[in-house]
């Protein structure tokens, strides 16, 4: 098949499998957070953005309200708007294709596409990763939700610890250099200080305000924090000297 000879399509397929697989952890955590099977599936089918989905169930699991869950998920989805602009500029989809492209515009499909230089490869990368992840993410979410529902006491299986690990795993690839670490520490501190004083879920929104303030007033890399959860070009990137990013400026 011709498509498999395309380097971007191959990267797109492997990133689909890697990302799709962790849909299992989302599905299992979602049902143990108190969402039912169809609510879990609605998030994966309709919201379809890993970080925001984990944020939604993370707030619900912590006893937060629906509106706080929505706030955290929505603020975390802002970066997809930036990705949308990038993909629109690169691929220039027309007609209904634009509405389909918007739905699969996420960290990984954008990273797969922008990692290519040839326009045709950019297009292949975006669509293979976008559609591939959508299919596998939903299949594995369903598998995880069914398995999670059969587990019984989630704490006995350490599923609250799994949620902690999932969020750290989403944060980790974005901590390249000193500045993002400083932002993360500042927001973590703001969260801890806010927890005793405001209702559950709200400390996350307090941290979002702190982060937006830092972004507004400081001048750093404009693509900071916009790294994918799973790096499609991890092998090339690890060849680079550690801790350095091409956009780093003192």
């Amino acid at each position, binding site marked *: 098949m011709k498509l498999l000879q395309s380097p971007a399509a191959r990267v797109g397929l492997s990133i689909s499998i890697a990302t799709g697989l*962790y849909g*299992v952890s989302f599905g299992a955590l979602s049902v143990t957070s108190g*969402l039912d099977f169809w609510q879990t599936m*609605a998030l994966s089918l309709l*919201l379809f953005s890993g*970080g925001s989905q984990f944020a*939604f169930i993370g707030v*619900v*699991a912590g006893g937060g309200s*629906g509106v706080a869950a*929505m706030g955290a*998920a*929505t*603020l*975390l*989805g*802002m*970066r*997809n*708007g930036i*990705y*949308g*602009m*990038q993909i*629109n500029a690169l691929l220039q*989809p027309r007609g209904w294709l634009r509405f389909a492209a*918007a*739905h699969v*515009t996420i960290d990984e499909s954008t990273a797969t596409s922008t990692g290519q230089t040839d326009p045709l490869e950019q297009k292949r990368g975006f669509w293979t990763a976008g559609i591939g992840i959508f299919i596998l993410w939903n299949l594995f979410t369903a598998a995880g939700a069914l398995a999670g529902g059969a587990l019984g006491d989630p704490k*006995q*299986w*350490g*599923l609250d*610890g799994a*949620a*902690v690990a*999932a*969020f*750290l*795993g*989403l944060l980790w690839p*974005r*901590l390249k250099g000193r500045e993002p670490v400083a932002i*993360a520490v*500042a*927001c973590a501190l703001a969260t801890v200080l806010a*927890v*005793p004083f*405001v209702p*559950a879920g709200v*400390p*996350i929104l*307090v*941290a*979002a305000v702190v*982060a937006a303030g830092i*972004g*507004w007033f400081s001048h750093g*890399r*404009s693509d900071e924090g916009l790294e994918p959860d799973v790096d499609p070009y991890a092998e090339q990137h690890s060849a680079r000297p550690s801790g350095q990013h091409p956009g780093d400026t003192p």
Partner: protein
Amino acid sequence: MNLWWWLLLSCLLAYAWKLLGFLVPASLLRDPRMSRIAGTMTIGLLASLTVVNTVASGQALALDARLGALAAAATALWFRAPFLVVVLAGAGAAAGLRLLGWR
């Protein structure tokens, strides 16, 4: 309001962000401040969610087996383990510590 409504509204807003990117003129792409805020907010929210899930118990702070999960996940990430292994390490650490009697 029922959780379903907030959930569906979240889905709608998530799609609105994505579509907005396709509909706004490309000249806005050159405003580095917007993409910078999107980035710092992503870092801040994920850091906050990590902390809340580690030490918050409702409106109280609690130090329990979840701290072990955080340490195990950090160790796994340090050794470049894939995401699913990181999650399993977190679950295993919390479950293991509880077996040993640490809530």
